C-alpha cells in the first residue's frame, strides 16, 4: 500500500491530482489523506483529517509514503523506516508562503534520507524507483534528538 499525505495545514491539489492520474500505472493500492473539496478522486482510497494515532498506523502499514516535503511527515516516515517520496510545495503555485519545502527537500535528499520529485512529472519514476529499493532505509534515524542537543537542553533546564 502507498500512503499519500499532505500534512495538516493546507490542501495540495497538485500532488493529489498527479497521484490520482498515475495510480492505475502503479498497480498497488493507494490510500490518500487529503482535505475535502478538491477534484473528485477516482483511483485512490480517500481519508479526511484523521487523529494522530490512526495516521501513524497508516504510515506503519505502508510500503511507501508519498507526501509534501513537510518535516513532520519526513521524520515520522524515517523513524518507521519507510521510504518516502516528497513533492515540495511551491510558492509560485500558491501552495505555501515561501519555498522552504524546496530547501528542505534538497537538503534531505543530500543526506540521502528522502527521494525528491521536483515536479509532478517526476513522481511516477521516483515512486517506482523507491518501491524497488528494499523496505529498510540505508540511513536509519532513531526516535530521539541528537545527544548533543539533548545534553544542551538538559543543561538549560537544570542549570540554576
Amino acid at each position, binding site marked *: 500500500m502507498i500512503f499519500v499525505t499532505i500534512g495538516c495545514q493546507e490542501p495540495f491539489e497538485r500532488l493529489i491530482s498527479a497521484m490520482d492520474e498515475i495510480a492505475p500505472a502503479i498497480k498497488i493500492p493507494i490510500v490518500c489523506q487529503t482535505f475535502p473539496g478538491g477534484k473528485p478522486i477516482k483511483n485512490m482510497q480517500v481519508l479526511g483529517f484523521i487523529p494522530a494515532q490512526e495516521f501513524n498506523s497508516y504510515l506503519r502499514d505502508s510500503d511507501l509514503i508519498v507526501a509534501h516535503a513537510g518535516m513532520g*511527515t519526513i*521524520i515520522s516516515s*524515517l523513524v518507521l523506516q519507510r521510504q518516502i517520496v516528497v513533492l515540495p510545495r511551491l510558492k509560485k503555485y500558491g501552495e505555501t508562503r515561501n519555498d522552504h519545502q524546496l530547501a528542505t527537500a534538497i537538503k534531505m535528499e543530500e543526506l540521502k534520507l528522502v527521494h525528491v520529485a521536483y515536479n509532478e512529472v517526476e513522481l511516477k519514476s521516483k515512486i517506482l524507483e523507491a518501491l524497488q529499493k528494499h523496505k529498510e532505509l540505508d540511513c536509519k534515524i532513531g*526516535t530521539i*534528538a541528537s545527544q548533543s542537543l539533548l545534553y544542551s537542553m538538559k543543561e538549560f533546564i537544570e542549570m540554576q
Partner: protein
Amino acid sequence: MLRLSQGCQSENKTIMKIIAIASAGGHWIQLLRLMPAFDGHEVIFMSTNPSFKDTISDHEFLCVPDGNRWNKFKLILLALNIGRKVIRIKPDIIITTGAAPGLFAIVFGKLIGSKTLWLDSIANVEKVSLSGKIAVFFADKVHTQWKSLANSKITYAGNVLS
C-alpha cells in the same frame, strides 16, 4: 520548588515545571524528540491538535488555538489563550520548537520570569524563521539546527535527527 533526593544520585535535583509547546505538524514531531531532556521534571505539553493528547498520555496536555501572522484576529485569540495559560501555570521553563503559539508562550513567559528556549525548526535550512528572529529579543536561548545558520545570538547545539 520541590527538592527531591534521587535515590541513586548523591545530589538533590530540583523538579522543574516545564511547558513544552509546538504547533501541529513538524514542529510537534520535533518537540517530542526532545523528551529525554525533560526526564524527571513536570511537563505540560501544548499544541493545536487535540488528538495529540493520546500520543503523550503520561503527561498533561492542553490544546491551544492555531494562528499565524496572516490572520491577525486568530493571532490575537491565540495570544490571549496562551497568555492565560502561561500566567495560570507559572512554569519555570518554556521550551518550544515553534511556531506562533511557542513565540507567544515565550513572550508571556518572559513577563513572569520563566526561563525560555526557542529551537528553530530543522525545516529552516537556509535561514532562521521570522519567529525565531523575533524570539531572540525575548528568549534566554535560541537554537538553530544548522551549524551554518548560527551567529552571535543564535546558537547551534545539534539537531533533532539521531
